[in-house]
């Protein structure tokens, strides 16, 4: 029994890794791209491409563990990127612009959290509404067109070859790594993290144990909003323009990453490490498929199948426990 549960833990841990390893092994064994796939510049560009989804996924992981969902993540990213571009265009110092972008994301998250807790609406509905609202505000702010902001150091955050060169990777990638570590620690070792798990596992119990559910949820959604805001800044940095139509449908990628990484949509389970692996599985797949020059539908089919397989594995893991 004990032996079994140990194997179980190993499988639980390795599960998502296996997927990533499988994807990497497959692509690095295809002769056509073999010598290119695992090269440092390619790894760097995959890492850079993952930053935005990864930042979104960190917030989404918290939300999904707490038993909620955030459909407005992608719109929020677009809005924050537009706000950042708008601020830079208006002549604000870049740091202030970044701050405004991140805060915008946080405010959208705060609005989500407050509406969900005060009106007692289902997160799906509230954030579905916010998906439209944030996108609309983004288009409105941008005057229904993209904003061409002057180039500043903000645009270096996501440059593949960073200045100064001792950074090795884009500052955005470093931020992603640091935040992932911080969030993983917070989720696992902090009181706040335990509270999130408790709420997602059984909200009634959490209430009974004196956990301040409303407050915790509002913090969770706001935090996720802040991450989306940062994601928006990164999106702006990458595009060099503030584009209100960017990242349409990206929320589904973010949710998929969390789910591939072991997050359960019924709440109570999930991890930052898993979600990050989910993000990288999808990035590597996309990268590999593009390098092969395969048409988009192949990669869409594969990613779709991977989501189903990942969730099926998750189910089996849970079923085994009974």
């Amino acid at each position, binding site marked *: 029994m004990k032996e079994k549960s140990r194997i179980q833990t190993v499988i639980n841990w390795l599960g998502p890794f296996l997927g990533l390893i499988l994807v990497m092994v497959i692509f690095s064994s295809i002769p056509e791209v073999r010598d290119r796939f695992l090269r440092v510049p390619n790894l760097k560009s995959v890492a850079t491409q993952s930053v935005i989804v990864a930042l979104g996924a960190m917030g989404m992981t918290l939300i999904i563990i707490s038993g909620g969902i955030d459909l407005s993540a992608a719109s929020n990213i677009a809005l924050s990127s537009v706000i950042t571009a708008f601020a830079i265009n208006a002549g604000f110092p870049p740091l202030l612009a970044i701050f405004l972008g991140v805060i915008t994301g946080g405010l959208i998250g705060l609005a989500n959290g407050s509406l969900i807790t005060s009106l007692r609406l289902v997160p799906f509905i509230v954030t579905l509404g916010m998906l439209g609202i944030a996108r609309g505000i983004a288009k409105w702010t941008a005057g229904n067109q*993209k904003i061409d902001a002057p180039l500043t150091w903000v645009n270096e955050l996501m440059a593949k070859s960073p200045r100064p060169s001792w950074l090795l990777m884009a500052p955005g990638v470093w931020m992603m790594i640091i935040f992932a570590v911080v969030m993983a620690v917070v989720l696992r070792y902090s009181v706040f993290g335990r509270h999130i798990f408790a709420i997602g596992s059984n909200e009634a119990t959490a209430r009974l144990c004196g956990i301040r559910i409303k407050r915790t949820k509002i913090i969770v959604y706001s935090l996720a909003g802040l991450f989306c805001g940062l994601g928006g800044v990164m999106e702006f940095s990458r595009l060099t*323009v503030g584009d209100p139509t960017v990242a*349409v449908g990206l929320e589904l990628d973010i949710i998929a990453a969390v789910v591939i990484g072991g997050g359960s949509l019924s709440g109570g389970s999930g991890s930052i490490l898993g979600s990050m692996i989910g993000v990288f599985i999808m990035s590597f797949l996309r990268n590999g498929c*593009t390098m092969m020059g395969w*048409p988009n539908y192949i990669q869409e089919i594969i990613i779709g199948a991977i989501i189903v*397989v990942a969730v099926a594995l998750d189910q089996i893991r849970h079923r085994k426990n009974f």
Partner: protein
Amino acid sequence: MKIKAQGIIILFLFFTLAFFSCSSKEKGLSSQESRLEIAVIPKGTTHEFWKSIHAGAARASKELGVKVLWKGPQKEDDRAQQITVVEDFISRGVDGIVLAPLDDRALWRPVRDAVQENIPVVIIDSALQGDDFVSFVATDNYKGGELAAGKIGELLQGKGNIFLIRYQVGSASTTKREKGFLDVIQREYPKISLLVQDQHAGSTTETAYQLAENLLNRFPDVNGIFCPNESSTFGTLRALQEAGLAGKVIFIGFDSSPKLVQGLRDGHIHGLVLQDPVKMGYLGVRQLVLHLQGEKIDKRIDTGVCLITRENMDDPEMKSLLMPDLT
């Protein structure tokens, strides 16, 4: 139950592996020949226009003996994803890239990255800022807009109410067409008034259809409409047909597709401004190959525009533009 489910998953993984390895073998053979590899990156893959570009590129690939990798952004018209595609092809180390940039600014840095890696880039269809690319092969879009305006002015005899339905925010080529159109209307036909000139149809037929439907409900007395690309033209055509206004409103569109050709034949469309996407795709790849072979090439190549109407649509020359041979 457990075993069954696990079995299914293992089977699935097995099949993906098999799929990958099969396809890799196939491609592995061809990669042994030392052909030039050229990535052609369109703005999207579903529009007729891009299929024509693809056909042109494929023709060039056959004639010149180069390998063409055709890949658009996963989501149509997503700038961020087009950047990703460019980066991935840089990673692959292709010999050259033919790119139709979704944004004249956002794609500038990836193109510069490519050039730094010694991968030359030819820009097609829409302009890009900077001058890192080796050549720009495109329609004179401004002229296309002027042609459309001239036709509308002529058909309306210089007076009436018209819509300009714009395509999408930040799309350089269509913006130029819109500008060319506006300039001529304002300069030469002062009695034509624009009821709508700042509404964007969005990237799909569906969004264009909805917009046109709403506009027609609001201004049923419109006399003329101009749309600057295929999806907006088709969406608006559908809305006109639904509203029973098709043929009554002077309607000039841009680009072609079988449905639009039918519309032209039925008299629902009074004119289509045509580019030559096949030529554009073909020339894009050819220019790049010439550059790679060390020849000097022109920085700007115009692939031409012409206006097609019901009267001249059956001329052989026009016919090949209307219904390009996509094989």
